[in-house]
């Protein structure tokens, strides 16, 4: 705050109040984060936020689907361009979810945040579903446009590897009974797997692929016409909110599952005693 060399009694009451109130705000912000680390507080927050998230997601999905339905045909692709409105958001989310899991993995390994491994475990099946949808819708878009459902090019293959890594992580979480041991192994695997994210993103630039290069997230700005860009962005936001909603719900389930596990251990120890 730049006040280190200033005597407190030299400050006006107004300045003192500003310092005190900004400190209180910082304290409150810090406490909010700490509160979120408490699973019980997290459950309480989720219960309050969930109805709003569900409603907003449903409204945005409805708007996005309507805009996708009334979007004009592309001059080259015709109506098949409508597949883009679900393929691209799922493709973005397939990578974004792994990014979220990578941050959670850092939270597990570095800060040992109580909710970090809960987040990673809850996100994996959702990320796998989005990646599966990206692959299937891409394949269904590829057949009429490229003449083939599948080509072993760099983009398609790297996304398939991402899908297999999601399945591997889910299997790992299920194979190890103790959640904290599974969390550390899964965190390492997640961080190693994060190497695949830039490979997926830049595969279309680094190699000669059948898949087209980026047309929205690129340095020169989007090359898509507004008639396609707006429905695409609405669907992307809607699917992102869907992810957040499903993630919070799955995290809530995981916290309850761990509560069940610990209470069952208490129950078993009482029986032994």
């Amino acid at each position, binding site marked *: 705050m730049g006040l280190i060399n200033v005597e407190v009694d030299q400050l006006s009451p107004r300045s003192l109040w500003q310092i005190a109130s900004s400190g209180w705000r910082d304290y409150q912000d810090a406490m909010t984060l700490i509160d979120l680390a408490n699973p*019980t507080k997290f*459950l*309480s927050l989720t*219960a309050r936020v969930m109805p709003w998230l569900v409603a907003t997601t449903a409204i945005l999905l409805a708007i996005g689907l309507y805009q996708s*339905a*009334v979007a004009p*045909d592309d001059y080259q692709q*015709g*109506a*098949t361009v*409508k*597949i883009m409105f*679900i*393929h691209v958001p*799922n493709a973005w989310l397939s990578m974004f979810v792994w990014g979220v899991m990578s941050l959670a993995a850092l939270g597990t390994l570095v800060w040992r945040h109580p909710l970090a491994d809960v987040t990673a475990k809850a996100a994996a*099946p*959702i990320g796998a*579903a989005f990646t*599966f*949808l990206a692959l*299937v*819708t891409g394949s*269904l*878009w590829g*057949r*009429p446009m490229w003449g083939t459902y599948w080509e072993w090019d760099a983009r398609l293959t790297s996304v398939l590897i991402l899908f297999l890594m999601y399945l591997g992580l889910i299997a790992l979480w299920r194979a190890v009974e103790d959640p904290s041991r599974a969390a550390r192994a899964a965190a390492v695997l997640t961080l190693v797997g994060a190497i695949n994210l830039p490979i997926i993103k830049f595969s279309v630039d680094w190699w000669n692929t059948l898949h087209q290069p980026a047309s929205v997230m690129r340095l020169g700005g989007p090359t898509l016409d507004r008639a396609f860009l707006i429905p695409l962005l609405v669907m992307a936001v809607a699917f992102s909110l*869907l992810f957040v909603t*499903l993630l919070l*719900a*799955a995290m*809530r*389930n995981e916290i*309850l*599952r761990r*509560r*069940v596990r610990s*209470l*069952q251990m*208490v*129950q078993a120890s*009482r029986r032994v005693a």
Partner: protein
Amino acid sequence: MLLGPYASFIVTSYAVATVVVVILILWIAIDYRNQRQRLRALDESGVTRRSGRNAADTR
């Protein structure tokens, strides 16, 4: 809304996306119900949390 000669590809894409998202939602909802039932059963058997609150209390 005319979808042209490739309508089956477009409809299948949206149908698959709908089915997968619905399965995901149902799976999470059923899992929540199962966990709540297990916590209620633990409550009924007299097991309590360290805080003294009911097992099924999610507030």
